């Protein structure tokens, strides 16, 4: 019995130091002595504190520092939207950099005349994640004053007094030690609190709409197919929510420099999850299709503070249409933006910048409302209009009902639930093809990123021209009943024009977006009539026009397939 008690006491004595050191520098990589836990350590020196501290003749005085100032000029973090003014590293940060910039031998301390030898011939910090180098452009900014005015200027930072402990400022500045405790490695990377669920980052950063966003809340996991979407975050973070900020960002050694993204190629930060391996829809596959918003074509062009209307440096990136800090799974009805488009800027129908956009088309207008270099109208027509905003103005004589309920109250072909009171999205037509696509214009096998086929080659006697069929005009027929159209329920000569000898595609007579009030009126430009140039030419009297006589009656002045309408009345 006594022996057992003695054994117990002995065990406690042996165990006690281990318990103490569990939260101690002794068991961490920062124990650079020969007894250290990491691979980088001294050959024989056993003192631990020595590599950073000295009790006498320290430099700088506090915290009794034992290492030289690197005395180098660092390249600092910068970005288009950074409100903070990072200076050259100072305070505790310059102390950290006296090892972590890789310029000074780890064993070089003020209190010893000789440099301490390290195992394996190591002198300065070996290259790798711990060696930040003197280029800090790809590291979270440090040594900047974080005051109330910075929080106000940034708009998405907590005020200094509301920073969540244990994160803290050092003499009013963010320093390495705001996030790291060099003496304790309780979590990983000497972090003072976990990054799980964006916990550490949220101590200062307060992103608008982030709280409810999918990237903050989603419990989706990775299916294990390469590539690993989370190669840099702790291995036990298994959901989107747990990875939080680290789904896209890296505080050190970022791939992008600006915005501290994992990868320099912007879309790669999205597509390593949105490839069917984490998020359910495979957006990456959409960008392999022939017709797409080709985000892969551009790099380092998009700026978060670029004007709402993109007028120069034309480009498209995922974040031009999506706000990864706000996007969420929330359906909406036209014309309202859905959750996926939440928190994105736009141009409203009045042509005014709006943030955030309320209606989906406002996001499309960022580039498709007269921006130079935006795609011209798909079809060359008699009335030429390349500005989509003008094509969809509710004052127009006719337009597909994207911005407001349409003008024509007599559309017998509409398939339920569509009615003449319906409103539709741009993405009702422009979206990915196939059932695995999203209702969004990422990419399609069909030109103009249309979700269904809409052939436009003129028929007539041309053997290679389009022959009317359910699939030839599948896009139009998805809302407008083919049976109704071919029964001439509205225009009495639909069947004749679509089939028989004429074989004219829908596109030859109809301009699907709309005709601007500036270029047409209620007698000349109703029913989306705007003839295709080249196919439809002037009549024998030199006229080329449509006249609406109301009640499914009208006149056409034109020549088509050698037939002269001068006019043809119906």
């Amino acid at each position: 019995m006594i022996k057992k008690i003695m054994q117990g006491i002995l065990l406690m004595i042996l165990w006690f130091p281990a318990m103490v050191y569990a939260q101690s520098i002794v068991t961490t990589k920062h124990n650079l002595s020969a007894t250290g836990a990491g691979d980088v350590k001294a050959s024989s020196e056993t003192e631990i504190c020595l590599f950073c501290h000295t009790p006498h003749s320290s430099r700088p005085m506090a915290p009794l520092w034992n290492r030289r100032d690197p005395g180098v000029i660092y390249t600092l973090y910068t970005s288009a939207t950074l409100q903070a003014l990072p200076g050259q590293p100072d305070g505790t940060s310059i102390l950290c950099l006296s090892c972590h910039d890789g310029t000074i031998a780890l064993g070089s301390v003020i209190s010893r005349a000789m440099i301490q030898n390290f195992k394996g011939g190591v002198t300065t910090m070996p290259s790798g994640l711990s060696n930040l180098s003197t280029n800090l452009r790809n590291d979270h900014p440090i040594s900047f004053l974080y005051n109330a005015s910075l929080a106000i200027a940034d708009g998405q930072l907590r005020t200094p007094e509301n920073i969540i402990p244990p994160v803290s400022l050092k003499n009013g500045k963010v320093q390495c030690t705001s996030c790291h405790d060099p003496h304790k490695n309780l979590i990983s990377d000497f972090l003072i609190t976990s990054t799980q669920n964006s916990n550490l980052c949220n101590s200062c950063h307060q992103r608008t709409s982030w709280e409810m966003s999918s990237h903050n809340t989603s419990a989706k996991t990775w299916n294990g197919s390469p590539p690993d979407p989370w190669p840099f975050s702790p291995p036990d973070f298994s959901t989107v929510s747990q990875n939080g900020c680290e789904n896209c960002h890296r505080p050190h050694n970022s791939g992008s420099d600006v915005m501290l993204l994992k990868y320099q190629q912007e879309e790669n930060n999205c597509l390593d999850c949105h490839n069917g391996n984490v998020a359910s829809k495979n957006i990456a596959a959409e960008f392999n299709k022939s017709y797409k918003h080709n985000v892969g074509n551009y790099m380092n062009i998009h700026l978060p503070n670029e004007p709402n209307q993109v007028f120069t440096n034309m480009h498209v990136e995922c974040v031009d249409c999506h706000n990864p800090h706000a996007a969420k799974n929330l359906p909406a009805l036209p014309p309202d933006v859905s959750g996926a488009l939440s928190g994105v800027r736009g141009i409203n129908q009045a042509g005014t910048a709006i943030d955030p956009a309320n209606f989906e088309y406002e996001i499309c207008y960022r580039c498709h409302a007269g921006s130079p270099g935006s795609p011209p109208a798909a079809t060359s027509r008699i009335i030429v209009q390349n500005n989509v905003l003008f094509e969809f103005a509710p004052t127009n004589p006719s337009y597909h009902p994207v911005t407001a309920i349409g003008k024509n109250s007599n559309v017998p072909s509409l398939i339920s639930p569509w009615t003449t009171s319906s409103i539709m999205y741009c993405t009702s037509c422009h979206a990915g093809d196939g059932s695995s696509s999203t209702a969004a214009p990422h990419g399609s096998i069909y030109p103009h990123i249309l979700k269904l086929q809409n052939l436009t080659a003129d028929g007539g006697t041309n053997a290679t021209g389009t022959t009317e069929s359910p699939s030839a005009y599948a896009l139009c027929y998805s809302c407008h009943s083919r049976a109704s159209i071919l029964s001439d329920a509205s225009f009495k000569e639909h069947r004749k024009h679509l089939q028989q000898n004429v074989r004219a595609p829908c596109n030859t007579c109809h301009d699907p977006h709309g005709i601007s009030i500036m270029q047409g009126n209620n007698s000349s430009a109703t029913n989306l009539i705007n003839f295709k140039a080249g196919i439809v030419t002037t009549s024998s009297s030199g006229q080329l026009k449509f006249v609406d006589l109301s009640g499914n009656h009208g006149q056409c002045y034109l020549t088509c397939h050698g037939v002269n309408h001068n006019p043809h009345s119906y």
Partner: protein
Amino acid sequence: MFAQVINAQTIVGSKHDFSAQTWNTTGEICKVCHTPHNAITLPDAPLWNHQLTTATFTTYSSATMNATVGQPDASSKLCLSCHDGTVALENFGGNTGGTHFLTGTTLLSSDLSNDHPISFTYDAALASTDGGLFNPITTPSGLGGTINANMLFSGKMQCASCHDVHNNAAGTPPSLLLKSNAASALCLTCHNK
């Protein structure tokens, strides 16, 4: 082996053995600091024989230090009577006109801002406030008792909390330490890092 142990525990042969120094015309070891008679009266000054410093010291400060550091007092002031470089080494036994002063790494000067703070009260309250210090009342010093019992003087940290001026046993390089600092054991006696 036996002789080594004996020598290791005495001032003889240590850096504080000044018997062979040219400026020590007495050739004695103890007399540079102590005298059996007519000693200088000062609290914590054991039969003191060396001229005292009158310097005003710049003390250590830092943004995160919770200790209140005053002017060096008690035994620390005796150490500084050589190590601040204001009083000549041979100014003992009533001498005042000495010309030999400390140089090099042992010269702390009267600017102590780059030296570990001394002459501050180190109690349980300080340990609690700091969060990175052990409670001196309950924590073993490794020298047989608690930090407070073995290393503090009237509850204060002084030079002698780390240094044993008579004993060169511990420490490489020899810094007259109270206990070995191998594996930073001396630092980690108080610092909970």
